């Protein structure tokens, strides 16, 4: 007798798994950045429009497919049409790339978490130079938080060509991160459950993209999660709940992030003013404590008129302190998490406590998303009878974790962060758009929207709302096609791709061109997942032709 498919203990477990997968680091470090770049509060308009028009319908579609087919992504799409097994395979390949590079973020979060139990926090002070007469040069030019990130954590090389060796500290943290992920997925389903300027077209495009990737569509994780559902589960309700919770988490994270920005900006502005005061006091031998922030401008004017020669000497060193320019610095990604936030935290009272809490939160977000990613890879593998008959579930999970960990060691090398950026920017963006487009077209036009609708009705007992049908059949595919076309043209028009490299001598980032082999690898990344779809379709077509040719016609 066939082994019964494991089920979620209750629908709440499933909802929590989806939420923990969808709410990830992107909510914390990408959404606030987009809000800031595209007009603050007004970015919420395109964001919510895209959520309602694109995010919820696609999320509902993936959950419904998983619940109906009761298989992982490869099996589910093969059931819809034998030629479409490639879509599932492409999802698995993209999930594989994602899980390879995503866990290094958890490794970094562990590293910072372990270093938070010190007084003072290691990123708040610069180390001393060789003869102990001053601070390290690189640290002076940059800042102590940047120094700790680029030198102590990453030990970054000047360019992507200088690979350097594997950093054993990062490798250990990566190993620990994979062990924790393995621990969580070991028991399978039972354990995962138990947690922009409106007229600017770019604002709309970025809103659409953000919704897309924030919900984690196209990786096959949602299909995997939903396949463990009871057939009668109301996945429409869950789709709405998950997407609303994901969006409110993004907005909440933005509120926190903006207050952190404000704190950091105020602090930097005040220390800038104090530096100017000290400079003037020392140059003109004024009485200690005479210059304050309130009389600074007055005194500057007086000094300029009374001692013009000396003042013009000192003038180049006087920085124009402006709160607006401090507030205007917008950072996203690892730069936000590990540099800006740590800079704000080091200036707070009880900074060790805030630091521990913050990196613990990052870890929870990161590991929650990792579980979804690995579920996307493992579910098709455990579904396949060939593999699951030879190896127990624990061994398959262990093997997947081991392979990913070994490949992930690439990101612990000195040039690792550059490769991380490559994977982060190119491994998922374009292939996912294509995958979700094929998914929608497959369900609506290959499987048949009417047939899917009647299946869902039989399964859940509820009729399908006209709104979902309209979105699936018309609006969402058009939106995805336009996103796809935009990104493709953007890549082509920009010409050669560039990246930001850390220059230790200047203490800041510089732009460099990717070497040829890096461009080749980028192309390979995009092609390896997108080509799965046509190749598998072609392969199935050929195999069927051959079979038809072999068997004699039955009378």
């Amino acid at each position, binding site marked *: 007798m066939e082994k019964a498919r494991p089920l979620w203990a209750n629908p709440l477990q499933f909802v929590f798994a989806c939420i923990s997968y969808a709410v990830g680091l992107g909510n914390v470090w990408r959404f606030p950045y987009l809000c800031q770049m595209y007009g603050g509060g007004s970015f919420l308009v395109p964001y919510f429009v895209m959520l309602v028009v694109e995010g919820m319908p696609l999320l509902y579609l993936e959950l419904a497919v998983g619940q109906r087919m009761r298989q992982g992504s490869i099996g589910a799409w093969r059931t819809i049409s034998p030629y479409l097994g490639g879509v599932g395979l492409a999802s698995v390949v993209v999930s594989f790339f994602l899980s390879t590079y995503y866990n290094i973020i958890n490794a970094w979060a*562990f*590293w910072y*978490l*372990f*270093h938070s*139990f*010190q007084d*003072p926090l290691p990123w708040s*002070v610069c*180390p*001393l130079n060789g003869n*102990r*007469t*001053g*601070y390290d040069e690189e640290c002076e030019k940059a800042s102590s938080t940047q120094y700790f990130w680029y030198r102590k954590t990453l030990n970054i090389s000047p360019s992507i060509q200088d690979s350097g060796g594997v950093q054993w500290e990062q490798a*250990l*943290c990566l190993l*620990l991160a994979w*062990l*924790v992920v*393995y*621990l969580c997925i*070991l*028991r399978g389903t039972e354990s995962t459950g138990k947690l922009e300027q409106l007229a600017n077209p770019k604002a709309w495009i970025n809103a659409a993209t953000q919704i897309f990737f924030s919900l984690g569509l196209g990786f096959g994780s949602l299909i995997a999660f939903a396949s463990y559902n009871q057939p009668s589960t109301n996945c429409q309700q869950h789709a709405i709940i998950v997407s609303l919770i994901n969006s409110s988490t993004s907005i909440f994270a933005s509120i926190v992030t903006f207050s952190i920005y404000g704190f950091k900006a105020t602090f930097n502005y005040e220390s800038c003013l104090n530096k100017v005061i000290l400079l003037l*006091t*020392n140059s003109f*031998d*004024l*009485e*200690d*404590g005479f210059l304050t922030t309130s009389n600074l401008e007055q005194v500057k004017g007086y000094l300029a008129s009374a001692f013009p020669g000396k003042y013009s000497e000192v003038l180049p060193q006087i920085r124009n302190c402006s709160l607006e320019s401090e507030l205007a610095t917008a950072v996203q990604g690892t730069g936000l998490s590990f540099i800006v936030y740590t800079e704000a935290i080091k200036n707070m009272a009880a900074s060790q406590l805030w630091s521990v809490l913050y990196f613990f939160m990052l870890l929870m977000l990161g590991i929650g998303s990792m579980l979804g990613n690995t579920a996307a890879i493992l579910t098709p593998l455990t579904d396949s009878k060939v593999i699951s008959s030879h190896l*127990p*579930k*624990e061994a398959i999970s262990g093997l997947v974790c081991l392979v990913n960990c070994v490949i992930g060691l690439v990101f612990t090398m000195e040039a690792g962060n550059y490769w991380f950026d490559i994977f982060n920017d190119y491994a998922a963006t374009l292939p996912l758009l294509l995958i979700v487009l094929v998914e929608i077209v497959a369900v609506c036009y290959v499987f048949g929207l009417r047939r899917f609708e009647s299946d869902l009705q039989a399964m859940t007992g509820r009729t399908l709302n006209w709104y979902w049908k309209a979105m699936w059949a018309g609006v969402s595919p058009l939106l995805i096609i336009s996103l796809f076309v935009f990104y493709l043209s953007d890549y082509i028009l920009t010409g050669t791709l560039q990246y930001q490299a850390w220059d230790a001598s200047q203490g800041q980032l510089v732009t460099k061109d990717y070497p040829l082999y890096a461009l080749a690898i980028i192309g390979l990344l995009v092609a390896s997942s997108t080509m799965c779809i046509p190749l598998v379709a072609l392969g199935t077509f050929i195999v069927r032709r051959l079979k038809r040719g072999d068997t004699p016609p039955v009378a």
Partner: protein
Amino acid sequence: MRQNNSVTQEHTRRSKAKADGENAFKVRLSIRTALGDNAYAWDTNEEYLFKAMVAFSMRKVPNRETTEISHVLVCNVTQRVSFWFVVTDPLKNHTLPAVEVQTAIRMNRNRINGAFFLNDQTLEFLKIPSTLAPPTDPSVPIWIIIFGVIFCIVIVAVMLLILSGIRQRRRMSKGPTEVDDSEDKCENTITIENGIPCDPLDTKGGHINDAFMTEDERLTPL
């Protein structure tokens, strides 16, 4: 007469302080920044203490044990508070080389700071870099300790889960065979009890019931 002499002596010394710029050091104090409301005013008595501290530092240098307070000259005192000082050697009538003064001050920096309730940042000798205290470096970095603790916990948890999974599977595979054995025994007793052999009804071995025709033979082949 004596007064005139001391005035001219003072004058020549002062000119030496300005003239030998390369052996003179500028000192800057930030008393208000350091002490806030408890700040003391800088006057000639504090200057005297400063000269005494410098002379004391010089006395610690070999060959300079005879340095007197009067050999230390201070000039150009500003409101900041900042001033220049130089150490002279009246016997040879020149100023002591900067390197010697530098080493002396560096070695006794803490004592000088302490005398004025200041620290390296608030009592600055502009050409004398202070030796910064390195951050305390424990022999085993703290992060490795925490890493080790969490690593061990995770490994133990993984082992426990794997072992319990193996045990569960072994129990499941033993289970059906045990149930089969007990069924066998039951059937043996039943067949003997009644005295009627129930072999045809024993379905455990999957015996074919000959009473019914097999599916294949029901339909005559074409």
